Structure formats: C-alpha cells, structure tokens
C-alpha cells in the first residue's frame, strides 16, 4: 500500500524540488521523511554533510531514518544506480510496499561535471521503474547552474512544492531527452598537446600508453588499472561497433589522466548506454564495456560531433584538502 501523493502510482514516482534556503529545504524534505516514517516505510537519506546535518538536527539520531553517505552513494551515476537497485531489491524482498529516498545529486555547483548526472536523472525513470519508489531530488538554486536546473525540470515528471506535488509540464520522455542533449563538455587538458596520440592502435599498445601516463602521476594502482580497463573496453567498442580510424589521445597531469577514444561512427543507438549494464538495457550492443567504464572512472563523457563519437575517460585523485571537505576538482 503506497502512501502520500504516490498512493496508487505504479513504479517510480520521481519528484524534484527547488529550494533557495535551509528553511525552504526543510519545508519540502521534512514532511516527505516524517510521513514515510509515520507510514512505516523504509525511508532513506543520502545527503552531503551540510544537508544531512540539517536533517539530523530536525529528526535526531534515533528517528528510524536510514542514512547513506551522500558522496559515496553519488560518486558515479552507474554506481548509484547499481547501489540503489540492490538496496531496493532487498527492501522489496522484505515486504516494502513503498520506499522513500531523498538525496543530493552532484552538479558543477558542487565541483562535479553534470553531463553524466543529467543522463542519470533521465535514465532512472527507466532504471527504477520496477520498484515502488518515491524518490525526491531537491536542488539548491543558490549553487546549481541554470543549465542544471533546466535539465532537472526536463527529467522529473513530478515537482514537490510548499503547496503540494504538481505534475511537471516540462518533463520530457527520457529517450527523447537523452537523444536530444548534446554534451558540450571537454576536459580543460584537451586544450594542451596530448602526451600520446595513437591511430588504430592495438589495444595492448594503448594500454601501455595509458599505464605509462598513469605511472607518472599520483593516481593509485587501482585507479590506473580501472582506467586501463576502461580504455580497452572503449577501444574494443570503437573497433567492433564504430567506424575507422580509431584515434586514442591521452593527457596527464599530476592528479589526473584523460583518455579520449574517437571513432568516425555515430555512437551507440541506445541512449541509456553506460549507465545500466547492457543485459538490462534495451539494446546491449557494446553496452557492457561502457557500463564498466562508468563504474571505474572518476568521470565518463559520451560526445557526438562532426569528428564522430568520442568516449572521454578520466581518472582523478582529489587534492588532499579537497578530499577533506568533499569537493572535487573543477573539471566541469
């Protein structure tokens, strides 16, 4: 039995809210959480430290809310989808008839590139559709850039306001949204000369180049392994599903390595590619390799332009002071 405005709704009730102050934040989020606890529904919070502190102050530590560490949960969209699906499958198996989740989705206002989170917000309408989930995504209008707020309006079918829930007239079909958006994102390092530029390389040669670039940085062995694996998967896709020639460019800074794999094809037809495993998407061609890349890299961008289709893979280690306060370096 579902409660609140999601009563009678089947599947994922995906709602956004906009706030410009702590008071507005609490005015939207507090009733959402209190009603969930009152109805005995699993009620999950995944906020950044500042917003979590507001909620803990309002509810106390023994409220029955489940707290997830927001930065860990929202480190990568493919990981967030995988993590939430596991949590929800367990809760449904234990009899949950509605699950409430509220969380801070990262954006450039928090120092994180937005493109893959825009794709996430559109895709979760599909990826969470099988669960009795009421998900609330509040966005801070003081920090989120206009482009982010615009795309949030296009990816959430419902809006929470102080006056109640509204159907969102700006919502677009997720597939159409994903096919329409043209990411403009480039890494600033791409303005410099690449450390390596390889044309139609055997995957092993590209791996050697990525490893060599990574070893000269402060990246961990695990980050370099993940980037090498992601680069191989992207090259394999370009060779098997794209059009030649395949160009691999690699840039490196002390804390970051960027790998761009470009082929002259148009890229995968499936707009959900990368964020959910191929076997769960509608068109599995080349999808699992890109999903793995999205699991392992600090950031992945998929870009179509006159050059063809480019997969950008980034491995990054945060500055020590940034890891302490939770901010990421500004690649957005």
């Amino acid at each position: 039995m579902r409660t609140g405005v999601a009563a009678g709704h089947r599947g994922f009730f995906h709602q956004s809210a906009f706030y410009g102050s702590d008071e507005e934040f609490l005015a939207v989020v507090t009733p959402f959480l209190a009603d969930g606890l009152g109805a005995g529904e699993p009620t999950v919070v995944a906020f950044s430290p500042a917003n979590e502190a507001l909620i803990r102050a309002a509810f106390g530590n023994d409220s029955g809310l489940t707290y997830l560490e927001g930065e860990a949960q929202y480190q990568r969209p493919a990981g967030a989808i995988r993590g939430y699906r596991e949590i929800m499958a367990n809760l449904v198996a234990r009899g949950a008839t509605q699950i409430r989740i509220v969380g801070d989705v990262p954006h450039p206002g928090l120092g994180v590139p937005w493109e893959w989170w825009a794709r996430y917000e559109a895709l979760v309408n599909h990826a969470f559709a099988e669960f009795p989930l009421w998900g609330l995504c509040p966005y801070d209008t003081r920090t989120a850039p206009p482009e982010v707020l615009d795309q949030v309006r296009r990816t959430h079918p419902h809006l929470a306001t102080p006056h109640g829930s509204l159907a969102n007239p700006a919502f677009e079909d997720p597939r159409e949204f994903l096919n329409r958006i043209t990411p403009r994102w480039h890494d600033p390092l791409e303005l410099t000369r690449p450390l390596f530029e390889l044309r139609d390389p055997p995957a092993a040669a590209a791996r050697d180049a990525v490893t060599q670039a990574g070893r000269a940085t402060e990246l961990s062995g695990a980050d370099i392994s993940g980037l090498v694996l992601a680069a191989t998967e992207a090259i394999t896709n370009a060779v098997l599903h794209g059009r030649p020639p395949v160009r691999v460019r690699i840039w490196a800074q002390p804390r970051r390595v960027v790998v761009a794999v470009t082929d002259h094809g148009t890229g995968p037809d499936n707009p959900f590619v990368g964020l959910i495993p191929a076997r769960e998407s509608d068109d599995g061609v080349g999808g699992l390799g890109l999903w793995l890349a999205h699991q392992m890299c600090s950031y992945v961008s998929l870009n179509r332009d006159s050059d063809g289709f480019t997969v950008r893979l980034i491995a990054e280690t945060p500055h020590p002071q940034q890891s302490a306060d939770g901010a990421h370096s500004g690649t957005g």
Partner: protein
Amino acid sequence: MPHSGSLGRHVCWAFDDPADFRLRAAQYLSEGMAGGARVIYIAKGDPELLLDDLSIVQGFRPAVASGAAQVMSIDSAYDAHATIDPAQQLQFYADATEQALADGHTGLRVAADTTSLVLTDANLDAFARYEHLADRYMVSHPLTALCAFDRDWLTAEQVAQLACMHPQASPEATQVRLYAAADAQIDVVLDGEIDMASHRLLHAALERADPAGQNSSITIDAMGVEFIDHEGVYVLSEYLSRRAATATVRCRPESSLAILIQLLSPPRLHLEIR
C-alpha cells in the same frame, strides 16, 4: 621472455630461419646433457644428415654413440601421415622417459621441429590437445621439451594456438598461455593479456586443455594475467558453463580480472585475491 638464457620445462619456439631453431635446439639439448638427461633431436629428414644440425654441440656425436643422445626423423617419433592420438603420443614419450631413467639418466629432454604435424586444422587441434597432456606429464616427470614451429608454414594465429599451450614461448608467439601447474591444488595456470585479439585463442585453449573435464570445481592460478577485458571473463565463464563447473580464480588485487569479477559477479567464478 628473453631471447637468450635458459629455457624451461616446456617451451614453444616459433622460428623464421631454420638456423635459429638449430641454435635453440643445440642450446637446449646441451643444457640437458649437462644435467645428465638423455636428449633427443627430432626434425624432418634423414637422421644422419640431421646430426650435422647439432655439430656445434660439444660431444654430441660421442653421446649419440653411447646412447645418451638420439637423432630421430619426425616420421619415426610420430605418425606423420595421420592425425596424432594425444594419449598415444604421450605414452611414447612417457615410455622413453622411463627408459632414460632405467638407463641411468636423470630424465629425457627433447627438441623437435613438429611443423609438419600441424598443417591441417584437425592435426593442429589434436596436436594442441596433446601439448597440454604432455605439459601435465612434465610437471611431475623428468621430461622437458622444446617444441619448434616454422612460421613459413603457419599463420600467426596457428602459431599462437600452439604456443598458448606452453608455459613459455618465443617472443610475440602468443599473448595468452594456459598450462599445467606443479602445485597439485592448481588445475591450470592462465597467463598473459586477454583482449579482443586473443578471445578466440583463450576459447580454443580452454577447450583443448579442458581443465574442468574431470572436475566440476577447479582452481585457476591467474596471478600472471596481466590484463583481461570483460569479454575474456565471459569466455572463461562460458567454458565453465559448458562443463557445468565452477572455478576459484587466484589473482592479484587491483588486477583487471579482480576488478571485473567484483563488478560482474559471474556466478561460476569465485575470486581469491593473493
């Protein structure tokens, strides 16, 4: 593998120039003789003429005279006109190894150019299966072998299919190796780099070595896998699925294999980080 230096128990050597093979064979058999093994040199041609191939090996002719060394034409060591029977061929070398021990040698070492035995798909398939059987025998018996193949007669893919069944191979002969382990707890060892250039090779090697043929729960030592992609993990998984088997996979932390098993949770592969 370095171009020079000591070669191990079971080596595949792909050569472009027969002189290169003769040099490797001479080095390999010399080391065998120095260690007290009986040695056999096998190639195509008349054994009397083949003796000249090893003229650089000091004391080789007297060793032939005393029975410590032998030179055989390929036709007398193998049935060169038929597809070999792997078990029967292994028996030939097992008997020869036992005989060497009975005659007071420390074991048997063979250097053979067996190119003419693998020139059809069926012959190559049978020979690659035999290579793994022989490799299993070698980990627990004093038989060592240098198996040489002439690149003039074989494609790079064919050379790789043979080389990948050896624990050691000449440079660039194969990017994958599947072989037997001396450790009885390990059913098979997998080494090398597995990507789109070697998925078919891994598939063929698994079918031919068939480590899960007798045992539905096996252990694979994959500590030497330098790289594997997700399709490579599926090749392993699908092999196990065809055998209704599962595998414990020993691998290094932070290796691509460990990362992929953790992310994909393939039901038949269990991770053991070493």
